[in-house]
């Protein structure tokens, strides 16, 4: 018990910049915008949210179109998931206020020409509106939303235990790049291979979602995700050779020379791998070599928010401090 208390104290002291647990019933605690090159990650654990009146509150803030989409989902679980996903997006974005208080339900969304969802800011009073970017991802047991200012963002979450129906290498040969197939083939332990596969998948998904041009604009085979380790250039099966960052090599996208994609990979809530990709600062040398500044919060909108950075809920794998 003493050790637990001690650990809590350490975590608290390590995270002075983190907001403390705040309970604000029926309201959302407003927040500072993330600074440029900083990412905020919010997540809901759907199994924690079953209260009917709370779910109704969430339903209230959705647009008619979103409500339709929720009810089109097959079964209670899927409907709840869809509802929580939209509620998370709306409540999260509504928190980041500049001048005026924005109601979650009054936010408008649109899709870019490739279908990527974006906020459609209503220019109130001609004030300069924050170029807030977001991206969501969910599984049956987590719903996550990443937020940045000024950078495109893509995120993907997958359950750590997820098993493919297909054979991993057959799948990789069909969809991944030769380098990645080689990396996976070199792993003899099936469980380790499966884990590395899931990590690669989430990173690739996060990249494509950050690009925002649709799956077909950047087919998975046309780019390689590479872990850079201390022993450069060696394909290593040793689990103790720690990667210090992740880079992407794109075969047929010349724009990649001007873009600078930064990646982070972490274990989230003990149960998931989460990958985040943001468009880096173009003035930096190299390919996103600085660790990503990330703040992670678990939330139940209108009920509670908890900053979990520095706790067991966030275990950095690569790309984070």
């Amino acid at each position, binding site marked *: 018990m003493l050790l637990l208390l001690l650990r809590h104290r350490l975590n608290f002291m390590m995270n002075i910049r983190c907001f403390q647990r705040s309970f604000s019933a029926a309201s959302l605690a407003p927040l500072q915008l993330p600074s440029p090159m900083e990412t905020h990650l919010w997540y809901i654990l759907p199994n924690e949210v079953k209260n009917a009146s709370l779910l109704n509150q969430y339903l209230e803030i959705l647009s008619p179109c979103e409500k339709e989409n929720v009810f089109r989902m097959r079964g209670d679980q899927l409907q709840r998931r869809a509802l929580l996903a939209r509620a998370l997006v709306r409540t999260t974005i509504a928190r980041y206020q500049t001048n005026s208080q924005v109601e979650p339900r009054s936010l408008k969304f649109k899709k870019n020409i490739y279908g990527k969802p974006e906020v459609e800011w209503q220019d109130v009073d001609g004030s300069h509106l924050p170029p807030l970017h977001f991206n969501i991802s969910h599984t049956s047991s987590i719903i996550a939303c990443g937020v940045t200012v000024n950078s495109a963002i893509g995120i993907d979450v997958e359950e750590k235990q997820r098993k493919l129906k297909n054979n991993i290498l057959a799948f990789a040969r069909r969809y991944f790049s030769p380098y990645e197939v080689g990396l996976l083939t070199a792993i003899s332990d099936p469980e380790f291979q499966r884990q590395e596969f899931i990590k690669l998948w989430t990173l690739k998904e996060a990249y494509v979602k950050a690009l925002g041009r649709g799956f*077909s604009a950047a087919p998975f085979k046309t780019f390689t995700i590479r872990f850079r380790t201390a022993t450069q250039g060696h394909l290593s099966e040793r689990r103790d050779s720690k990667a210090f960052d992740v880079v992407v090599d794109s075969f047929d996208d010349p724009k990649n020379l001007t873009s600078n994609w930064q990646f982070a990979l972490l274990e989230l809530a003990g149960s998931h791998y989460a990958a985040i990709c943001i468009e880096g600062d173009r003035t930096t040398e190299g390919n996103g070599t600085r660790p990503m500044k990330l703040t992670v919060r678990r939330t139940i909108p209108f009920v509670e928010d908890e900053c979990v950075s520095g706790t067991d809920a966030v275990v950095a794998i690569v790309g984070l401090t």
Partner: protein
Amino acid sequence: MASVTGTSISMASFKASLAPSSRISNVKSVSFPISGKSFTTLRMQPARFRISCAAKPETVTKVCEIVKKQLALPDDSAVTGESKFAALGADSLDTVEIVMGLEEEFGISVEEDSAQSIATVQDAADLIENLIEKKGA
């Protein structure tokens, strides 16, 4: 002269009887002439409008099987041509696995941009038959 006894007519059966050899896909809502009055509403998604030959029922059934297996749905769950992958709970990894399963089952190869436009079981079945036909040509 057809006589309509019930007030509701199942969309799927009506579409099949209307035009067996051609159909407008991705139609969201259509009013069919019942008492001789003309079409009232016809709503389509322009970007995905295409007229295609409807896939054979066997193909649709096979796709349903593969989808149910991938998503671990019970055998008796209602999956039909109109079922949307997303509404059944398929995420992007599921969809890609489904496409791979379809490629193996039917001996075809699906391009990324075609895969991206698959939203329903029917879309997948139509695409499959399209590809099979091109292969044979």
